[in-house]
């Protein structure tokens, strides 16, 4: 009997702790959703200091195929750099791009 009580107690305790753990990401998600407007406001304050700004789109610079091709010459130049032995380094902007607001938020802002 004592063993049964112990097993059920372990089960209940596990259920509670597992539920906490399992919901952790959902909780973070919910919290982050409710805080998303605050997040956007913060991003704007970073943008004002010239550090972070929403990125609208990203296209691989080495686009060999026909989809999303930026420039053959840029691609060829980059490939030459990447496949060469010399470590020249690639240009990286000091801007910090972030994913922009969701379409729903954009529509809300336009209301």
């Amino acid at each position, binding site marked *: 009997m004592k063993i049964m009580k112990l097993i059920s107690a372990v089960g209940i305790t596990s259920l509670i*702790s597992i539920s906490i753990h399992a919901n952790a990401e959902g909780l973070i998600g919910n919290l982050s959703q409710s805080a998303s407007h605050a997040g956007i406001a913060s991003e704007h304050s970073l943008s004002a200091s010239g550090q972070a700004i929403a990125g609208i789109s990203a296209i691989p610079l080495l686009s060999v195929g026909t989809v999303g091709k930026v420039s053959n010459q840029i691609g060829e130049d980059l490939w030459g750099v990447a496949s060469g032995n010399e470590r020249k380094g690639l240009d990286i902007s000091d801007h910090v791009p972030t994913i922009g607001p969701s379409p729903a938020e954009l529509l809300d802002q336009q209301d």
Partner: protein
Amino acid sequence: MVRIIALTFVGWSLTFQWAVAGSDSPETNARFSQEELASFSKLVEKEAAAENALAFLLGRVGEAEENLPDGVEFTHVGLAIYSEIKLENGDRIRGYAIHNLYQQRNNPRRSIISQDYPFDFFLGATKLKAGIIIPTPVLQRKMIELVTSGDHIRLHNPDYSVIANPFNTTYQNCTEYILDIIFAAIYDSTDLGLIKSNQKAYFTPKELSFNPGQLFFGTLFGVVRRDDHPTAIKTTTFGTLKKYLEENYGLQKVIIKG
């Protein structure tokens, strides 16, 4: 009182080690300021750019390190591609865009493919630490071609398990998705039959050990799905991706930052 404490400990111990390939995409981070995350993510970008990396695998730590199973160093891996990024102000800049498989926020058993940037990627970090695997230039090029063609989307399986078995298509986690991209690029095919058979032949996943209580209650309460594992639990990790590339294809460089 002692029993309550002991039971709580037992209950917690049943769950704490499921942090294998957690692929959350939160919008905020309670541990680090936006300035810290911006600075660190830019540091990571410049580290990879200094090696002329047009594409690389990027790992982050999204759980307390003491909760990670032995041999698991990073909990999420994405594919970073050197890109022209159009900003909301119309400017075009150069930097890395990250292609990820993330768990859905409202349904952890399902995933989405999402492209973000290093700053967003590290919003899910519990430590300012990055794993950078730079494949050979030829493989970089092949992976970029795959993504540019849109074929990487065809490799996505939205049924998510944190400990997905890479040798079948029942579930997929973030690291298996990257593994599938690597194989699709190498074999120039999105045929999952071909990809899985070659993974069985050439890729060695990480075997994870959990005590029977963890497995029983984890499965019982839906925290973990293990029905895709016929025997031992083996999954894809940052370390196994690195080992596979080192042994079978060659690597340009590996950098652990932070």
